[in-house]
Protein backbone atom coordinates (compact mmCIF):
# COMPACT_ATOMS: atom_id res chain seq x y z
CA UNK A 1 0.00 0.00 0.00
CA UNK A 2 1.03 3.57 -0.37
CA UNK A 3 1.05 6.84 1.44
CA UNK A 4 1.97 10.29 0.26
CA UNK A 5 3.99 12.93 2.04
CA UNK A 6 6.38 15.74 1.24
CA UNK A 7 9.82 14.62 0.28
CA UNK A 8 12.66 15.66 -1.98
CA UNK A 9 13.23 12.06 -3.07
CA UNK A 10 13.02 11.42 -6.81
CA UNK A 11 10.83 8.80 -8.47
CA UNK A 12 12.47 5.36 -8.61
CA UNK A 13 11.06 4.65 -12.08
CA UNK A 14 11.29 7.77 -14.26
CA UNK A 15 13.97 9.45 -12.08
CA UNK A 16 12.64 12.76 -13.43
CA UNK A 17 9.80 13.78 -11.15
CA UNK A 18 9.64 14.31 -7.42
CA UNK A 19 8.40 11.19 -5.63
CA UNK A 20 5.11 11.76 -3.84
CA UNK A 21 4.04 8.17 -3.28
CA UNK A 22 6.09 5.99 -0.93
CA UNK A 23 5.46 2.27 -0.80
CA UNK A 24 6.72 0.22 2.12
CA UNK A 25 6.77 -3.54 1.77
CA UNK A 26 7.34 -5.76 4.74
CA UNK A 27 8.29 -9.33 4.06
CA UNK A 28 9.58 -12.16 6.21
CA UNK A 29 13.16 -10.95 5.86
CA UNK A 30 13.23 -7.26 5.05
CA UNK A 31 11.58 -3.86 4.94
CA UNK A 32 11.85 -2.11 1.58
CA UNK A 33 10.64 1.33 0.63
CA UNK A 34 10.11 2.47 -2.98
CA UNK A 35 9.34 6.00 -4.13
CA UNK A 36 7.22 7.01 -7.12
CA UNK A 37 5.95 10.20 -8.72
CA UNK A 38 2.20 10.60 -9.19
CA UNK A 39 2.21 9.46 -12.81
CA UNK A 40 4.40 6.36 -12.36
CA UNK A 41 2.40 5.36 -9.28
CA UNK A 42 -0.84 5.59 -11.25
CA UNK A 43 0.75 3.57 -14.08
CA UNK A 44 1.72 0.88 -11.59
CA UNK A 45 -1.81 0.91 -10.19
CA UNK A 46 -0.77 2.03 -6.70
CA UNK A 47 -3.63 3.66 -4.88
CA UNK A 48 -3.79 5.79 -1.76
CA UNK A 49 -4.55 3.97 1.49
CA UNK A 50 -7.82 4.67 3.23
CA UNK A 51 -7.68 7.10 6.09
CA UNK A 52 -7.22 5.60 9.55
CA UNK A 53 -10.36 4.17 11.10
CA UNK A 54 -10.63 6.83 13.79
CA UNK A 55 -10.19 9.72 11.37
CA UNK A 56 -12.67 8.39 8.87
CA UNK A 57 -15.29 7.03 11.26
CA UNK A 58 -17.15 10.32 11.39
CA UNK A 59 -17.01 10.80 7.62
CA UNK A 60 -18.27 7.42 6.67
CA UNK A 61 -21.00 7.31 9.30
CA UNK A 62 -22.38 10.42 7.68
CA UNK A 63 -21.85 8.99 4.25
CA UNK A 64 -23.82 5.87 5.15
CA UNK A 65 -26.40 8.13 6.76
CA UNK A 66 -26.83 9.93 3.42
CA UNK A 67 -27.28 6.65 1.54
CA UNK A 68 -29.74 5.29 4.01
CA UNK A 69 -31.99 8.31 4.09
CA UNK A 70 -35.45 7.13 3.15
CA UNK A 71 -34.30 3.66 2.14
CA UNK A 72 -32.81 1.55 4.91
CA UNK A 73 -33.91 3.44 7.99
CA UNK A 74 -34.88 6.95 8.90
CA UNK A 75 -32.08 8.78 10.68
CA UNK A 76 -34.78 10.16 12.97
CA UNK A 77 -35.77 6.65 13.99
CA UNK A 78 -35.17 6.12 17.72
CA UNK A 79 -34.02 3.00 19.58
CA UNK A 80 -36.94 1.27 21.34
CA UNK A 81 -34.94 0.87 24.57
CA UNK A 82 -32.71 3.92 25.01
CA UNK A 83 -34.41 6.34 22.52
CA UNK A 84 -31.09 7.19 20.87
CA UNK A 85 -31.37 8.37 17.26
CA UNK A 86 -29.04 7.44 14.42
CA UNK A 87 -28.14 11.11 13.98
CA UNK A 88 -26.82 11.10 17.52
CA UNK A 89 -24.67 8.05 16.82
CA UNK A 90 -23.33 9.74 13.71
CA UNK A 91 -22.25 12.66 15.86
CA UNK A 92 -20.66 10.72 18.75
CA UNK A 93 -19.66 7.38 17.21
CA UNK A 94 -21.08 5.65 20.31
CA UNK A 95 -24.26 3.58 20.56
CA UNK A 96 -26.77 3.93 23.37
CA UNK A 97 -27.43 0.33 24.37
CA UNK A 98 -27.38 -3.25 23.08
CA UNK A 99 -30.93 -2.90 21.67
CA UNK A 100 -29.56 -0.31 19.19
CA UNK A 101 -27.83 -3.19 17.38
CA UNK A 102 -31.21 -4.87 16.82
CA UNK A 103 -33.18 -1.73 16.03
CA UNK A 104 -30.58 -0.33 13.59
CA UNK A 105 -29.55 -3.77 12.37
CA UNK A 106 -29.22 -3.11 8.62
CA UNK A 107 -27.45 0.21 9.09
CA UNK A 108 -25.03 -1.10 11.74
CA UNK A 109 -24.25 -4.20 9.73
CA UNK A 110 -22.88 -1.90 7.04
CA UNK A 111 -21.00 0.19 9.59
CA UNK A 112 -19.38 -2.94 11.07
CA UNK A 113 -18.44 -4.21 7.64
CA UNK A 114 -16.75 -0.92 6.85
CA UNK A 115 -14.77 -0.90 10.10
CA UNK A 116 -13.80 -4.56 10.40
CA UNK A 117 -14.11 -5.86 6.86
CA UNK A 118 -16.66 -8.32 8.23
CA UNK A 119 -19.92 -8.20 10.13
CA UNK A 120 -19.98 -11.78 11.34
CA UNK A 121 -18.55 -12.78 14.72
CA UNK A 122 -16.70 -16.08 14.52
CA UNK A 123 -15.02 -16.04 17.93
CA UNK A 124 -16.26 -17.06 21.37
CA UNK A 125 -19.87 -18.17 21.57
CA UNK A 126 -21.40 -16.79 24.73
CA UNK A 127 -23.31 -19.05 27.08
CA UNK A 128 -25.58 -16.90 29.29
CA UNK A 129 -26.48 -17.89 32.89
CA UNK A 130 -29.84 -19.40 31.79
CA UNK A 131 -29.17 -20.68 28.26
CA UNK A 132 -31.76 -21.92 25.76
CA UNK A 133 -31.30 -25.26 23.98
CA UNK A 134 -30.19 -23.39 20.87
CA UNK A 135 -27.56 -21.44 22.81
CA UNK A 136 -26.24 -24.65 24.35
CA UNK A 137 -25.98 -26.27 20.92
CA UNK A 138 -24.13 -23.27 19.47
CA UNK A 139 -21.74 -23.25 22.39
CA UNK A 140 -21.03 -26.97 22.03
CA UNK A 141 -20.29 -26.46 18.35
CA UNK A 142 -17.82 -23.70 19.21
CA UNK A 143 -16.14 -25.75 21.94
CA UNK A 144 -15.71 -28.71 19.61
CA UNK A 145 -14.03 -26.57 16.96
CA UNK A 146 -11.81 -25.09 19.70
CA UNK A 147 -10.83 -28.59 20.78
CA UNK A 148 -9.80 -29.64 17.26
CA UNK A 149 -7.83 -26.36 16.91
CA UNK A 150 -5.98 -27.11 20.15
CA UNK A 151 -5.21 -30.65 19.01
CA UNK A 152 -3.94 -29.35 15.66
CA UNK A 153 -1.64 -26.93 17.48
CA UNK A 154 -0.56 -29.80 19.76
CA UNK A 155 -1.88 -27.96 22.82
CA UNK A 156 -3.11 -31.16 24.42
CA UNK A 157 -3.55 -29.76 27.91
CA UNK A 158 -5.87 -27.10 26.53
CA UNK A 159 -7.72 -29.66 24.41
CA UNK A 160 -8.31 -31.81 27.51
CA UNK A 161 -9.73 -28.82 29.40
CA UNK A 162 -12.16 -28.09 26.57
CA UNK A 163 -13.10 -31.77 26.40
CA UNK A 164 -13.98 -31.72 30.11
CA UNK A 165 -16.14 -28.65 29.54
CA UNK A 166 -17.95 -30.33 26.67
CA UNK A 167 -18.62 -33.45 28.79
CA UNK A 168 -19.88 -31.29 31.66
CA UNK A 169 -22.25 -29.40 29.36
CA UNK A 170 -23.56 -32.56 27.75
CA UNK A 171 -24.22 -34.12 31.16
CA UNK A 172 -26.02 -31.00 32.40
CA UNK A 173 -28.04 -30.97 29.20
CA UNK A 174 -29.10 -34.61 29.65
CA UNK A 175 -30.11 -34.04 33.26
CA UNK A 176 -31.86 -30.75 32.52
CA UNK A 177 -33.53 -31.94 29.32
Amino acid sequence: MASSKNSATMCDLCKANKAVVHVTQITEVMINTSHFCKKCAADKGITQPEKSIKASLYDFLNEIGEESRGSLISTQHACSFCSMKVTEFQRTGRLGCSQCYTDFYTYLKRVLKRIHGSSLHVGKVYLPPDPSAHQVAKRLEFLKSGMSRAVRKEEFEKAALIRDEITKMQLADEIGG
Partner: protein
Amino acid sequence: MKTLPSRGLDWISGSGENSEVVLSTRVRLARNLQGFRFGSSSGGLDGTSVLNSVKSNLQADDFGDSCILLEFDQINRLQQRILLERRLVSPELVGTEEDGPPSGSALILGPNDGLSVMVNEEDHLRIQTMFSGLALSEAWDMADEMDELLGAVIPFAYHNEFGFLTSCPSNVGSGLRASVLVHLPGLVLTNEIGKVLEGMAQIGLTARGLYGEGSDVVGNLFQISNQTTLGKIEENLVDHLETMIRRVIGYEHEARQVVMKDGANITEDRVWRAYGLLKHARSLSFAELMGLLSRVRLGIGLKLLPDIGVYTLNKIMLFTQKAHLEEAAGRPLAPAERNLYRATYVRKALSIKEA
Protein backbone atom coordinates in the same frame (compact mmCIF):
# COMPACT_ATOMS: atom_id res chain seq x y z
CA MET B 1 -10.53 5.82 53.24
CA LYS B 2 -9.41 2.42 51.98
CA THR B 3 -5.71 1.75 51.50
CA LEU B 4 -4.72 0.61 48.05
CA PRO B 5 -3.48 -2.95 47.75
CA SER B 6 -0.05 -3.01 46.09
CA ARG B 7 -1.25 -4.47 42.83
CA GLY B 8 -0.44 -4.01 39.17
CA LEU B 9 3.29 -4.12 39.87
CA ASP B 10 4.25 -7.61 38.66
CA TRP B 11 4.96 -6.51 35.10
CA ILE B 12 7.90 -4.31 36.15
CA SER B 13 9.97 -7.39 37.09
CA GLY B 14 11.37 -7.50 33.56
CA SER B 15 11.36 -11.28 33.85
CA GLY B 16 9.20 -12.10 30.85
CA GLU B 17 10.27 -13.25 27.41
CA ASN B 18 12.07 -10.68 25.21
CA SER B 19 12.25 -8.22 28.09
CA GLU B 20 15.15 -6.41 26.39
CA VAL B 21 12.61 -5.02 23.90
CA VAL B 22 9.15 -5.79 25.28
CA LEU B 23 8.14 -4.11 28.54
CA SER B 24 4.68 -5.55 28.95
CA THR B 25 1.80 -7.38 27.30
CA ARG B 26 -1.84 -6.54 27.86
CA VAL B 27 -5.13 -8.04 26.78
CA ARG B 28 -8.52 -6.49 27.37
CA LEU B 29 -12.04 -7.73 26.68
CA ALA B 30 -14.92 -5.26 26.42
CA ARG B 31 -18.21 -6.58 27.81
CA ASN B 32 -21.59 -5.02 28.57
CA LEU B 33 -24.49 -6.07 30.75
CA GLN B 34 -27.87 -6.85 29.27
CA GLY B 35 -30.61 -4.35 29.97
CA PHE B 36 -28.59 -1.21 30.75
CA ARG B 37 -27.59 1.79 28.68
CA PHE B 38 -23.93 1.93 27.66
CA GLY B 39 -21.62 4.14 29.70
CA SER B 40 -20.57 7.04 27.53
CA SER B 41 -23.94 7.83 25.93
CA SER B 42 -26.07 7.74 29.07
CA GLY B 43 -23.70 10.19 30.77
CA GLY B 44 -23.34 7.62 33.55
CA LEU B 45 -27.12 7.45 34.18
CA ASP B 46 -27.05 3.68 34.60
CA GLY B 47 -23.60 3.57 36.20
CA THR B 48 -24.77 2.99 39.76
CA SER B 49 -27.29 0.32 38.72
CA VAL B 50 -24.61 -1.45 36.66
CA LEU B 51 -22.21 -1.46 39.61
CA ASN B 52 -24.92 -2.74 41.98
CA SER B 53 -25.82 -5.51 39.57
CA VAL B 54 -22.16 -6.55 39.21
CA LYS B 55 -21.73 -6.47 42.98
CA SER B 56 -24.78 -8.57 43.79
CA ASN B 57 -23.94 -11.13 41.09
CA LEU B 58 -20.38 -11.46 42.33
CA GLN B 59 -21.40 -11.67 45.98
CA ALA B 60 -23.80 -14.49 45.18
CA ASP B 61 -20.93 -16.49 43.71
CA ASP B 62 -17.96 -18.06 45.52
CA PHE B 63 -15.66 -16.65 42.91
CA GLY B 64 -16.44 -13.12 44.14
CA ASP B 65 -14.64 -13.86 47.42
CA SER B 66 -11.29 -14.06 45.64
CA CYS B 67 -11.68 -10.54 44.19
CA ILE B 68 -11.21 -7.08 45.71
CA LEU B 69 -13.63 -4.34 44.70
CA LEU B 70 -12.37 -0.74 44.72
CA GLU B 71 -15.30 1.64 44.37
CA PHE B 72 -14.10 5.03 43.22
CA ASP B 73 -16.28 6.94 45.65
CA GLN B 74 -14.51 5.11 48.48
CA ILE B 75 -10.97 5.97 47.42
CA ASN B 76 -9.53 9.46 47.07
CA ARG B 77 -8.41 11.34 43.97
CA LEU B 78 -4.72 10.57 44.54
CA GLN B 79 -5.46 6.85 44.82
CA GLN B 80 -7.47 7.00 41.59
CA ARG B 81 -4.51 8.66 39.85
CA ILE B 82 -2.14 6.02 41.24
CA LEU B 83 -4.30 3.31 39.66
CA LEU B 84 -4.12 5.26 36.39
CA GLU B 85 -0.31 5.49 36.55
CA ARG B 86 -0.15 1.73 37.18
CA ARG B 87 -2.22 1.36 34.00
CA LEU B 88 -4.92 -0.50 35.92
CA VAL B 89 -7.53 2.07 34.92
CA SER B 90 -7.95 4.37 31.93
CA PRO B 91 -8.12 8.18 31.88
CA GLU B 92 -11.83 7.84 31.04
CA LEU B 93 -12.53 5.94 34.26
CA VAL B 94 -10.69 8.54 36.35
CA GLY B 95 -12.50 11.39 34.57
CA THR B 96 -11.47 15.04 34.33
CA GLU B 97 -10.30 17.09 37.32
CA GLU B 98 -13.53 19.15 37.09
CA ASP B 99 -16.05 16.32 36.73
CA GLY B 100 -14.29 13.42 38.46
CA PRO B 101 -15.02 9.78 37.62
CA PRO B 102 -18.33 8.73 36.02
CA SER B 103 -20.93 7.45 38.52
CA GLY B 104 -20.41 3.84 39.53
CA SER B 105 -16.72 3.80 38.51
CA ALA B 106 -14.92 0.89 40.12
CA LEU B 107 -12.05 -1.51 39.69
CA ILE B 108 -12.21 -5.21 40.47
CA LEU B 109 -8.85 -6.77 41.30
CA GLY B 110 -8.83 -10.46 40.41
CA PRO B 111 -7.11 -13.30 42.25
CA ASN B 112 -3.87 -12.80 40.24
CA ASP B 113 -1.76 -9.64 40.19
CA GLY B 114 -2.08 -9.02 36.45
CA LEU B 115 -5.86 -9.43 36.39
CA SER B 116 -8.42 -6.66 36.85
CA VAL B 117 -11.78 -5.43 35.59
CA MET B 118 -12.77 -1.82 35.07
CA VAL B 119 -16.44 -1.15 35.82
CA ASN B 120 -18.31 1.65 34.04
CA GLU B 121 -15.72 2.75 31.56
CA GLU B 122 -16.99 3.28 28.00
CA ASP B 123 -18.21 -0.31 28.30
CA HIS B 124 -19.73 -1.68 31.52
CA LEU B 125 -16.87 -4.12 32.01
CA ARG B 126 -13.34 -4.13 30.70
CA ILE B 127 -11.53 -7.32 31.69
CA GLN B 128 -7.78 -6.73 31.51
CA THR B 129 -4.63 -8.73 32.06
CA MET B 130 -1.04 -7.53 32.15
CA PHE B 131 2.20 -9.50 31.98
CA SER B 132 5.91 -8.75 31.94
CA GLY B 133 7.62 -9.16 28.57
CA LEU B 134 6.01 -10.85 25.57
CA ALA B 135 3.27 -13.14 26.89
CA LEU B 136 0.31 -12.82 24.56
CA SER B 137 -1.16 -16.29 24.88
CA GLU B 138 -0.82 -16.22 28.69
CA ALA B 139 -2.51 -12.82 28.80
CA TRP B 140 -5.31 -14.01 26.50
CA ASP B 141 -5.86 -17.24 28.45
CA MET B 142 -6.17 -15.39 31.75
CA ALA B 143 -8.60 -12.83 30.30
CA ASP B 144 -10.61 -15.62 28.66
CA GLU B 145 -10.88 -17.47 31.94
CA MET B 146 -12.08 -14.36 33.80
CA ASP B 147 -14.58 -13.71 30.99
CA GLU B 148 -16.00 -17.23 31.43
CA LEU B 149 -16.33 -16.79 35.19
CA LEU B 150 -18.01 -13.38 34.94
CA GLY B 151 -20.22 -14.28 32.00
CA ALA B 152 -21.58 -17.31 33.83
CA VAL B 153 -23.04 -15.13 36.60
CA ILE B 154 -23.62 -11.77 34.85
CA PRO B 155 -25.76 -11.78 31.68
CA PHE B 156 -23.70 -10.13 28.90
CA ALA B 157 -25.03 -8.25 25.88
CA TYR B 158 -24.43 -10.63 22.97
CA HIS B 159 -25.78 -10.81 19.43
CA ASN B 160 -25.85 -14.08 17.46
CA GLU B 161 -24.39 -12.45 14.40
CA PHE B 162 -22.33 -9.51 15.74
CA GLY B 163 -20.97 -11.20 18.88
CA PHE B 164 -20.27 -9.21 22.06
CA LEU B 165 -21.88 -5.77 21.82
CA THR B 166 -19.97 -2.64 22.76
CA SER B 167 -20.55 1.07 23.03
CA CYS B 168 -18.25 1.83 20.08
CA PRO B 169 -18.76 -0.35 16.98
CA SER B 170 -14.97 -0.57 16.60
CA ASN B 171 -14.86 -3.02 19.55
CA VAL B 172 -17.81 -5.26 18.57
CA GLY B 173 -17.39 -9.00 18.09
CA SER B 174 -14.61 -10.34 20.26
CA GLY B 175 -14.23 -7.06 22.19
CA LEU B 176 -10.57 -8.02 22.29
CA ARG B 177 -7.68 -5.60 22.22
CA ALA B 178 -4.26 -7.15 22.69
CA SER B 179 -1.32 -4.78 23.01
CA VAL B 180 2.38 -5.00 23.53
CA LEU B 181 4.54 -2.17 24.88
CA VAL B 182 7.84 -2.20 22.99
CA HIS B 183 11.01 -0.13 23.29
CA LEU B 184 12.38 0.60 19.81
CA PRO B 185 15.36 2.98 20.09
CA GLY B 186 17.32 1.13 17.37
CA LEU B 187 14.59 1.62 14.78
CA VAL B 188 14.20 5.26 15.82
CA LEU B 189 17.97 5.96 15.62
CA THR B 190 18.28 4.30 12.20
CA ASN B 191 15.18 6.14 10.92
CA GLU B 192 13.46 2.88 10.11
CA ILE B 193 10.61 3.37 12.58
CA GLY B 194 8.37 5.20 10.09
CA LYS B 195 8.46 2.24 7.72
CA VAL B 196 7.69 -0.23 10.47
CA LEU B 197 4.73 1.80 11.74
CA GLU B 198 3.41 2.27 8.22
CA GLY B 199 3.70 -1.46 7.63
CA MET B 200 1.88 -2.16 10.89
CA ALA B 201 -1.05 -0.02 9.80
CA GLN B 202 -1.31 -1.95 6.55
CA ILE B 203 -1.72 -5.26 8.30
CA GLY B 204 -4.39 -4.14 10.75
CA LEU B 205 -2.23 -3.09 13.70
CA THR B 206 -1.98 0.32 15.37
CA ALA B 207 0.82 1.98 17.30
CA ARG B 208 0.12 4.36 20.16
CA GLY B 209 2.01 6.07 22.98
CA LEU B 210 2.58 4.80 26.51
CA TYR B 211 -0.80 5.80 27.91
CA GLY B 212 -2.83 4.44 25.01
CA GLU B 213 -5.15 6.21 22.62
CA GLY B 214 -4.21 9.79 21.84
CA SER B 215 -1.05 9.79 23.97
CA ASP B 216 2.34 10.89 22.65
CA VAL B 217 5.25 8.60 22.11
CA VAL B 218 7.78 9.19 24.90
CA GLY B 219 11.08 7.43 25.51
CA ASN B 220 10.86 5.44 22.25
CA LEU B 221 8.04 3.37 23.74
CA PHE B 222 5.32 2.19 21.40
CA GLN B 223 2.15 0.34 22.19
CA ILE B 224 1.23 -1.94 19.30
CA SER B 225 -2.23 -3.49 19.17
CA ASN B 226 -4.81 -5.08 16.89
CA GLN B 227 -7.13 -2.63 15.16
CA THR B 228 -10.16 -4.76 14.29
CA THR B 229 -12.10 -7.06 16.61
CA LEU B 230 -14.74 -8.68 14.41
CA GLY B 231 -14.60 -11.57 11.94
CA LYS B 232 -11.61 -13.40 13.40
CA ILE B 233 -11.26 -15.97 16.15
CA GLU B 234 -9.68 -14.46 19.27
CA GLU B 235 -6.70 -16.82 19.17
CA ASN B 236 -6.00 -15.81 15.59
CA LEU B 237 -6.08 -12.10 16.49
CA VAL B 238 -3.58 -12.78 19.26
CA ASP B 239 -1.39 -15.06 17.10
CA HIS B 240 -1.29 -12.51 14.29
CA LEU B 241 -0.13 -9.80 16.69
CA GLU B 242 2.48 -12.13 18.17
CA THR B 243 3.92 -13.05 14.77
CA MET B 244 4.23 -9.38 13.84
CA ILE B 245 5.71 -8.37 17.22
CA ARG B 246 8.36 -11.07 16.86
CA ARG B 247 9.20 -9.64 13.47
CA VAL B 248 9.45 -6.13 14.95
CA ILE B 249 11.74 -7.47 17.71
CA GLY B 250 13.91 -8.98 14.97
CA TYR B 251 14.07 -5.64 13.12
CA GLU B 252 14.91 -3.85 16.36
CA HIS B 253 17.80 -6.23 17.06
CA GLU B 254 19.12 -5.72 13.53
CA ALA B 255 18.85 -1.96 13.94
CA ARG B 256 20.76 -2.15 17.23
CA GLN B 257 23.53 -4.07 15.47
CA VAL B 258 23.67 -1.35 12.83
CA VAL B 259 23.85 1.31 15.53
CA MET B 260 26.75 -0.50 17.19
CA LYS B 261 28.53 -1.18 13.90
CA ASP B 262 28.26 2.37 12.61
CA GLY B 263 28.87 4.23 15.84
CA ALA B 264 29.90 2.05 18.73
CA ASN B 265 31.87 4.87 20.40
CA ILE B 266 29.11 7.43 20.03
CA THR B 267 26.47 4.99 21.24
CA GLU B 268 28.52 3.91 24.21
CA ASP B 269 29.18 7.53 25.10
CA ARG B 270 25.48 8.44 24.86
CA VAL B 271 24.48 5.49 27.04
CA TRP B 272 27.04 6.27 29.77
CA ARG B 273 26.26 10.00 29.68
CA ALA B 274 22.57 9.23 30.21
CA TYR B 275 23.49 6.90 33.06
CA GLY B 276 25.71 9.57 34.58
CA LEU B 277 22.93 12.16 34.41
CA LEU B 278 20.45 9.80 36.06
CA LYS B 279 22.94 8.99 38.80
CA HIS B 280 23.78 12.58 39.62
CA ALA B 281 21.04 14.95 38.46
CA ARG B 282 19.30 16.97 41.18
CA SER B 283 16.20 17.82 39.12
CA LEU B 284 14.52 15.78 36.40
CA SER B 285 11.34 16.41 34.43
CA PHE B 286 9.35 13.32 33.42
CA ALA B 287 10.06 13.95 29.73
CA GLU B 288 13.83 14.25 30.32
CA LEU B 289 13.78 11.17 32.51
CA MET B 290 12.01 9.11 29.86
CA GLY B 291 14.61 10.12 27.25
CA LEU B 292 17.49 9.17 29.56
CA LEU B 293 15.85 5.90 30.60
CA SER B 294 15.50 4.98 26.93
CA ARG B 295 19.26 5.39 26.37
CA VAL B 296 20.12 3.41 29.49
CA ARG B 297 17.61 0.71 28.52
CA LEU B 298 19.33 0.48 25.14
CA GLY B 299 22.66 0.24 26.98
CA ILE B 300 21.38 -2.71 29.00
CA GLY B 301 20.14 -4.39 25.83
CA LEU B 302 23.58 -3.92 24.23
CA LYS B 303 25.24 -5.18 27.43
CA LEU B 304 27.15 -1.95 27.85
CA LEU B 305 25.98 -1.43 31.43
CA PRO B 306 26.78 -4.43 33.61
CA ASP B 307 25.41 -3.45 37.01
CA ILE B 308 21.83 -2.56 36.19
CA GLY B 309 18.80 -4.40 34.83
CA VAL B 310 15.44 -3.49 33.30
CA TYR B 311 13.66 -4.07 36.63
CA THR B 312 15.30 -0.95 38.09
CA LEU B 313 14.35 1.09 35.02
CA ASN B 314 10.73 -0.13 35.07
CA LYS B 315 10.52 0.66 38.77
CA ILE B 316 11.87 4.17 38.19
CA MET B 317 9.46 4.73 35.31
CA LEU B 318 6.49 3.73 37.44
CA PHE B 319 7.32 5.36 40.76
CA THR B 320 8.46 8.74 39.44
CA GLN B 321 5.10 9.59 37.94
CA LYS B 322 3.24 12.48 39.54
CA ALA B 323 0.76 10.66 41.78
CA HIS B 324 3.33 8.11 42.97
CA LEU B 325 5.76 10.90 43.94
CA GLU B 326 3.00 12.79 45.75
CA GLU B 327 1.99 9.69 47.63
CA ALA B 328 5.57 9.10 48.76
CA ALA B 329 5.95 12.77 49.75
CA GLY B 330 2.63 12.69 51.58
CA ARG B 331 1.47 15.95 50.02
CA PRO B 332 0.82 17.63 46.65
CA LEU B 333 3.99 18.79 44.86
CA ALA B 334 4.47 21.82 42.60
CA PRO B 335 6.12 20.91 39.24
CA ALA B 336 9.61 22.22 40.17
CA GLU B 337 9.49 20.45 43.50
CA ARG B 338 8.31 17.26 41.83
CA ASN B 339 11.41 17.32 39.62
CA LEU B 340 13.59 17.40 42.75
CA TYR B 341 11.75 14.46 44.30
CA ARG B 342 11.99 12.57 41.02
CA ALA B 343 15.76 13.03 40.77
CA THR B 344 16.16 11.93 44.39
CA TYR B 345 14.15 8.78 43.75
CA VAL B 346 16.24 7.96 40.66
CA ARG B 347 19.56 8.45 42.50
CA LYS B 348 18.42 6.16 45.31
CA ALA B 349 17.10 3.48 42.94
CA LEU B 350 20.37 3.44 40.98
CA SER B 351 22.48 3.12 44.11
CA ILE B 352 20.86 -0.27 44.84
CA LYS B 353 22.49 -3.10 42.92
CA GLU B 354 20.17 -5.58 41.27
CA ALA B 355 20.58 -9.15 42.41
